[in-house]
């Protein structure tokens, strides 16, 4: 079974990269390099250290923003889910945040917080936090009532009902919120480097595009996608470790 799923993964990678190579060779556009050209550019950047230096810059707002979004988002989501009053007070903020066109808000953020790290962290948080908060709140609100009744009838304290029943019961939806939120956070990190000040990976993308080095540009985009996928896989490992019985197979298995 494990071999079969590995085989399918390799097969789908082969199909996608093959299609990329063919599209690059036709070419569909002058601005679209082949797969092998992009990989060559990627390895070149990896070995001359420029990719590492770029990620050292990009990961700063990304890591800070994702950490803030995950911890604060889950905490606020729990609170909203448990208290109707908090729901009334805070839910609208996150619904608006989720619906807002972020690119239009960036000039406002730059005016308030400058062009440094703070603004970029904000962009990551605005992208990542709403879905984490809203998913957590919804999952907490939908805890099966028979589970909380079971806890009460077996003498759980209020805190135990939350930590031993409500949070684990909500965990599949919390984790799916984290997956969506963190992917959005990756988008936010790159967006902030394209829209605020070109640094890190955003700088590689902007600069290589301006000198028509499209292979390098696609290599940078490819590397951020790979990083995001690896991180989401890592998140699944965490979930499996903590809540084994909840996990009944994911698309990426």
């Amino acid at each position, binding site marked *: 079974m494990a071999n079969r799923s590995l085989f399918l993964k390799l097969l789908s990678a082969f199909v996608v990269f093959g299609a990329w190579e063919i599209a690059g060779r036709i070419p569909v556009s002058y601005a679209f390099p082949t797969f092998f050209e992009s990989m060559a550019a990627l390895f070149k950047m990896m070995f001359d250290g420029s990719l590492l230096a770029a990620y050292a810059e990009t990961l700063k707002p990304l890591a800070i923003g994702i950490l803030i979004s995950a911890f604060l988002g889950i905490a606020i989501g729990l609170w909203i889910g448990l208290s109707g009053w908090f729901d009334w007070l805070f839910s609208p903020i996150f619904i608006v945040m989720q619906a807002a066109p972020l690119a239009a808000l960036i000039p406002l953020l730059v005016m308030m917080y400058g062009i440094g790290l703070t603004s970029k962290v904000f962009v990551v948080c605005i992208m990542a936090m709403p879905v984490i908060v809203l998913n957590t709140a919804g999952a907490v609100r939908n805890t*099966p009532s*028979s*589970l909380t*009744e*079971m*806890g*009460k*009838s*077996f*003498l*759980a304290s209020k805190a*135990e009902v939350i930590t*031993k*029943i409500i949070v*684990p*019961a909500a*965990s599949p939806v919390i984790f799916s919120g984290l997956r969506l939120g963190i992917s959005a956070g990756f988008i936010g990190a790159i967006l902030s480097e394209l829209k605020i000040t070109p640094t890190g990976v955003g700088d590689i993308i902007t600069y290589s595009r301006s000198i028509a080095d499209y292979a390098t540009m696609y290599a940078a985009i490819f590397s951020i996608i790979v990083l995001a996928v690896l991180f989401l896989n890592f998140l699944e490992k965490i979930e499996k470790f903590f*809540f*084994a*019985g*909840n996990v*009944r197979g994911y698309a990426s298995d």
Partner: protein
Amino acid sequence: MLQTDNPVQDLPAGHGHSVASSNSSANAVSVRNVSKNYGTVEALKDLSLEFPKGQLTSLLGPSGCGKTTLLKIIAGLLEPTSGEIEVDGRSVDGPGPDRAFVFQDFALLPWASVLRNVSFGLELRGVAKSEREDIAAKYIADVGLAGFEKSYPHELSGGMRQRVGLARALSVDSDVLLMDEPFSAVDEQTRRKFQEDLLSLVANENKTFIFVTHSIEEAVYVSDQIAILLPRPSRVSDIIRPSGLREKDSRSIRRDPEYLDIVDEIWESLRSYVE
């Protein structure tokens, strides 16, 4: 075929269709004048009922008659609007270690193994991990699930899941077991097996069972005492005590004339309330 030697000796009311005794020492649970209103709707009205120690009492009635509401009030999960509940002579106003609950939908933690699910009640009581897992393993074996300790609920059949729920309720060693339609979500054959197992459980464990069901046959088969509840607002319309069925072999009860008579009689009294 009147019952002559009742296994619980101190019960004066073991004959025919008599109302249960109000002698509090013989009653594990007493419900006194309990009413429950949801807004303007009266779910229960001035309901009183005694549950004799060491016996199984069924709450039977058409749907909407408030039998689950009554059970949850006894469990302390719902607050009565008025009236009181006494367990073993003490008035109670919330869940307590003297009562354990078996849920209709099993209420198992899907992220926890069978072992953790069964020991969950003990975990909440602060019993040390190795001790509670020993106790849980014993009850898992008792309900016939030895070897499934590490399985997760979604890997088990409905019947096996309810065995886990039962083992969890037994492991906390409460005097009173509250069962809310425990067999309604399992298939017919498993259900019959459960009913037979329940009879031996009542005979062997010195516990009081309160059993909610909507099945007349099931109630007559397993009960020492059947309380018929009628709806809107709920009240106890009749208390029936089958007298000769306990001595019978569990496989011949369903052919017993008394069993058939009581089933018929209950259906006659309920049919006008069922549309």
